[in-house]
């Protein structure tokens, strides 16, 4: 047992040190303060394994929020008690996530934030429910996460159903506003639950919206070569290409399209596109990325606090990805609940989360209101890569640019 604790402490300390070194924002003494009478919160992220990049980004965001709250005097209703993060690595698997929830529970955390992948969140929320441990899902978009009646589970961001519905409606709006230049669509999707589920939804919703679907191509993750897929796109010559896959495949597909000189007439339009709203992609493959649209998690570009956080993350040499600001927001949501609960008691925090009206956050959402654990104010945003930046084109209340649609001639 002592070995386990030592290992965890070691991991915790080294991770904290790494985070401090990376962000340059955290003072060293706070590591030593880990034993103080603060409120312990579990920060769960898959920082190793296949999802490690997302996990590390998520941990960064959560850590930034914890630092910010502690620097501003901690939880005021509890005499300035500090948030004391207990870091966990879900190892990119549901089992790994569950093991960490067990450990966090025995470490006496008051709540957990994180999980990232839907598969992990489905498992970890359930394990946390056994201990009546409030759990805030950071990303996990699968709708069933919040429809199983778990009283401890909350999701601040939008789920799959909301995102795809908005994506399809927005595509139809954008096309109608431009006098319907696009009629045909081709879908390229990865073949697990996310991509295949999306392709199925698109195949029913888009024909109803007046689009003809020429072909739907599935591919595995990882796929090493997209030449065949691009050849098929070239032969079918669709007006719109809709990719639904993860970062590496998305970039390879976009690069191959550029290389093979294949360019749809109207747009590349993604839904939760792996790279389509990633600053990394924009920076590294600017030409291949031009005018790509995406419907995804996004921050409010008109919010000064969001822009300040973005600057901070970029100054630390990291990209401002959705994992960062979603985890950041979720920790702030939790801190707000603890503030109102005036206690580290799990049941009190759960009740405070359920009645949360968390405002002044950095997301382009409507008023926060939790129904069965889902924030009904949550919504995705439509983005487009224009020049060196990613602009929000819809919803109009948050837009920073007008859509470029159809594509300008090459």
């Amino acid at each position: 047992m002592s070995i386990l604790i030592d290992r965890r402490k070691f991991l915790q300390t080294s991770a904290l040190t790494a985070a401090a070194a990376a962000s340059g924002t955290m003072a060293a003494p706070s590591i030593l303060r880990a034993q103080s009478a603060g409120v312990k919160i579990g920060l769960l992220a898959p920082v190793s394994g296949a999802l490690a990049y997302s996990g590390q980004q998520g941990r960064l965001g959560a850590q930034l929020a914890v630092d910010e709250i502690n620097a501003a005097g901690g939880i005021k209703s509890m005499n300035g008690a500090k948030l004391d993060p207990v870091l966990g690595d879900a190892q990119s698997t549901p089992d790994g996530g569950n093991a960490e929830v067990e450990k966090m529970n025995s470490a006496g955390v008051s709540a957990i934030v994180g999980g990232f992948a839907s598969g992990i969140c489905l498992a970890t929320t359930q394990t946390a429910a056994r201990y009546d441990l409030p759990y805030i899902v950071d990303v996990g978009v699968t709708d069933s996460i919040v429809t199983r009646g778990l009283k401890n589970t909350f999701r601040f961001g939008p789920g799959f159903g909301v995102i795809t519905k908005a994506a399809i409606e927005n595509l139809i709006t954008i096309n109608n506003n431009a006098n319907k230049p696009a009629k045909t669509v081709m879908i390229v999707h990865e073949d697990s639950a996310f991509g295949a589920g999306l392709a199925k939804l698109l195949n029913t919703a888009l024909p109803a919206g007046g689009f003809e679907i020429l072909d739907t191509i599935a591919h595995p993750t990882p796929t090493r070569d997209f030449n065949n897929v691009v050849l098929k796109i070239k032969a079918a010559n669709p007006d719109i290409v809709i990719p639904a896959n993860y970062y590496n495949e998305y970039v390879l597909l976009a690069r191959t399209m550029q290389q093979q000189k294949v360019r749809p007439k109207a747009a590349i339009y993604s839904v939760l596109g792996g790279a389509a709203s990633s600053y990394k992609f924009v920076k590294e493959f600017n030409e291949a990325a031009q005018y790509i649209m995406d419907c995804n998690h996004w921050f409010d570009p008109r919010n000064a606090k969001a822009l300040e956080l973005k600057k901070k993350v970029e100054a630390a040499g990291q990209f401002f990805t959705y994992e960062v600001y979603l985890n950041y927001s979720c920790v702030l949501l939790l801190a707000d609940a603890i503030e109102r609960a005036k206690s580290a008691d799990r049941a009190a925090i759960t009740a405070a989360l359920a009645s949360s009206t968390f405002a002044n956050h950095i997301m382009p959402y409507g008023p926060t209101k939790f129904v069965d654990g889902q924030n009904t104010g949550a919504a995705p945003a439509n983005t487009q890569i224009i020049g060196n930046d990613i602009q929000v084109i819809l919803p109009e209340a948050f837009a920073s640019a007008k859509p470029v649609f159809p594509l300008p001639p090459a």
Partner: protein
Amino acid sequence: MHLTILIPAILNGLLTGAVYALIALGLTLVYGVLHIINFAHGAMLTAALFAAFFMHKLLGLDPYIAVFILSPAFFALGYALQRFVIGPAAHGSDSNILLVTLGLSVVIENAMLHFFRADTRTIDVPYGFSVVPVAGAYLSVPRLVGFGVAVLVAVLLWALLTRSDTGKAIRAVAKEKLGAELSGIDVSHIYAVTFGLGAACVAIAACLLIPTYYVNPHVGTGFVLVAFTIVVLGGMGSIPGALIGGLFVGVVESLCGLYLGESLGQIGIFLMFILVLLFRPSGLMGERA
């Protein structure tokens, strides 16, 4: 399916297959001589990709120039690994070697994860997007270079094995270890040289891949699974077998992807693999046991 798609698909398959072949060459050489399956091959490929990446990023060296530094460096690294880590740790038992290489792969991959994070990285070279029109297809210049170099390396390796003294010693050790030792061949040196050659192949493959591909700490695994198939398909330890097997697997993967969908693209490879195991267990070019 139109010829306008079919011909480019076959050409693409050949280009992909050549790089598979190069990775398989290193694996087959090590298997043929040392009779061990090098589980660290994928991790070494990842390490080489990172090395090529940082050579470009920090020193501004083009991967096609870096290859002349990296392949000797990886040869030395492979030599040292076999001579000072794998050899001594194995205590003469093959199953130990298996475990040692497996352990090495875990150590290398996690060390890279620790130092470089799980970030996917790519480099941007001026010729990265250049293409040559061939028979109605746009063939990527870096992939064509990859094809040429892979074939060249296979020919050179084959010449080395059949013509040079070191090559003869390697073949002698592979055939009859004790006999070779009695004839004055330094067996542990030859083992290490072979392992070094395998590592050098991986370094060359990395330099050919990086202009059009990406690197992250897990990237090697996907290639090595295919390389294992090629080694068995071509015949364990056979250089021409690895080359032909690699090209064949590339084309099969490409055509299966085209006709059955990308998700089922790899089914062709493994179907073929099973058929070969059933009807020609020693592989296409392998010597009969």
